């Protein structure tokens, strides 16, 4: 069984991004970059399936500029077997990413595609669902537990009211939530080994995908800052302020 894991390079979760002075975008120059945390969980889950003997091969794919190869190497250091880099310098919307992934999936014929549920830059939470729709696969988003059996996947999902369990035949799309697993740290020998694992580079044209423009970014602005508050010295003072100043109780 083959598992495909699409991954994204994003600004590290611990870095606070700022908006560019000309309000055209956020300023990501010279910021620390990382594998999107949810994608890392997706890679970890795929690798665990391989270690458990359920999966035979884990393929990671990323779409973006040359630099995404760094995150593909990271994914292989975590245990993925090989990587595909679809090179483009354009910033693509999730639908365009999903169309490219559909072409990759047609080549790879993976039985399971595991995504992170969202990337922490765009916060779109769309790509997995879109690939599932374009390929007519069933989907289980926001997964906190994944079990494979002879007749498919059983997935527990984190939903607004609690937990929901769904069962579906393969091939299927699963998107990882935070509590699916705790990713391992890549060991130094595995980081070295990852450098020699196969990494194939393709262009969007190679895949025969044609894309169109769907939206324009009019501007990117900082959110309204909250007014600085005050420190109170006791619980009694807090209650007094909430009653008489804020008038919320």
């Amino acid at each position, binding site marked *: 069984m083959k598992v495909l894991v699409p991954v994204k390079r994003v600004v590290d979760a611990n870095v606070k991004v700022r908006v560019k002075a000309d309000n055209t975008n956020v300023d990501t120059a010279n910021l620390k970059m990382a594998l999107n945390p949810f994608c890392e969980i997706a890679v970890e889950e795929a690798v665990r399936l391989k270690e458990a003997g359920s999966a035979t091969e884990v393929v990671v794919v990323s779409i973006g500029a040359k630099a995404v190869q760094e995150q593909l190497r990271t994914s292989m250091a975590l245990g993925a077997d090989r990587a595909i880099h679809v090179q483009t310098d354009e910033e693509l919307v999730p639908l365009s990413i999903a169309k490219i992934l559909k072409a990759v999936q047609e080549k790879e014929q993976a039985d399971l595609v595991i995504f992170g549920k969202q990337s922490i830059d765009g916060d779109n939470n769309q790509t997995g669902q879109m690939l599932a729709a374009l390929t007519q696969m069933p989907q289980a988003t926001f997964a906190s537990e994944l079990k494979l059996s002879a007749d498919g996947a059983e997935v527990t999902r984190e*939903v607004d009211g609690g937990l929901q369990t769904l069962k579906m035949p393969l091939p299927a799309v699963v998107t990882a939530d935070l509590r699916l697993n705790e990713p391992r740290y890549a060991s130094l020998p595995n980081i070295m080994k990852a450098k020699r694992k196969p990494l194939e580079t393709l262009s969007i044209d190679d895949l025969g995908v044609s894309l169109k423009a769907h939206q*324009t970014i009019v501007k990117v602005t900082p959110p309204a800052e909250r007014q600085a508050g005050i420190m109170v010295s006791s619980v009694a003072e807090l209650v007094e302020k909430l009653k008489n100043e804020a008038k919320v109780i």
Partner: protein
Amino acid sequence: MAILVLAEHDNASLKLDTAKVVSAATAIGGDVHVLVAGSACAAAVTAAQALTGVSKVLVADAAAYEAQMAENLSELVLKLAGDYDYVVAAATSVGKDTLPRVAALLDVAQISEVIEVVSADTFVRPIYAGSALATVQSLDDTKVLTVRTSAFDAVGNEGSAEAVAVDFVAEAKTVFVSQTLTESERPELGSAGVIVSGGRGMGSGENFAILEALADKMTAAVGASRAAVDAGFVPNDLQVGQTGKIVAPDLYIAVGISGAIQHLAGMKDSKVIVAINKDPEAPIFQVADYGLEADLFDAIPELTNLL
């Protein structure tokens, strides 16, 4: 212009989220219809008919829609979408699961978590955990949007829309197995006026009892940080933040929560924020209107007593 709103409901009742999405739809302007897709969902339909500004309620009542699974729900919406310029849903677990599928099937992009309608084709949405706001203009013919409901006020109940049955039933390969929903007498996070949230500083699930006592005194909902959920103190559906629930109550009390950007992303639009933390350097104090440097195990019982 015609707008189709996917109702947020649990078959037995319509969620307040629907009234907030209708409010966003009304801001776009046009004929607003609501689709209630579920099973034995008559009560939700009646509630949707009463929403101010809704002119028609489409009802797809079939066993196949009981669990509101994205796979076939998206087929249903696609079937109806031809009559509409917009398809809009709340950014809830059902909306986030289903609408991207609808958008992909329509070959249009989705704009996620809209917090402001600028014009008929231009919307504002947060990116980078709310560190920036992107104003996005859609070039697509059909606009597919999810709405962050904490950013919109609910419409009232002065409507009397007609209900029309939709008899299209799409089947799914996905099978619903089971569901464990957190039972609580307290208000829901999304609609509570007051939220009391606990973090890793609570120390254990048992210790949440002191927060619950405070919440009950204030008719508040209980929330939590990711760390508190990961540690197993409370269930996942209490998580507030970038990847949990986004809330904006009148009063948010953060207890033993440090204030990581991912947590702030879920609550920084609250009207009044109170932080109780024993570390004076905790970043939560930078967004708090009232900060109290104290041990929560002293402060919370005292607060409950004084109210």
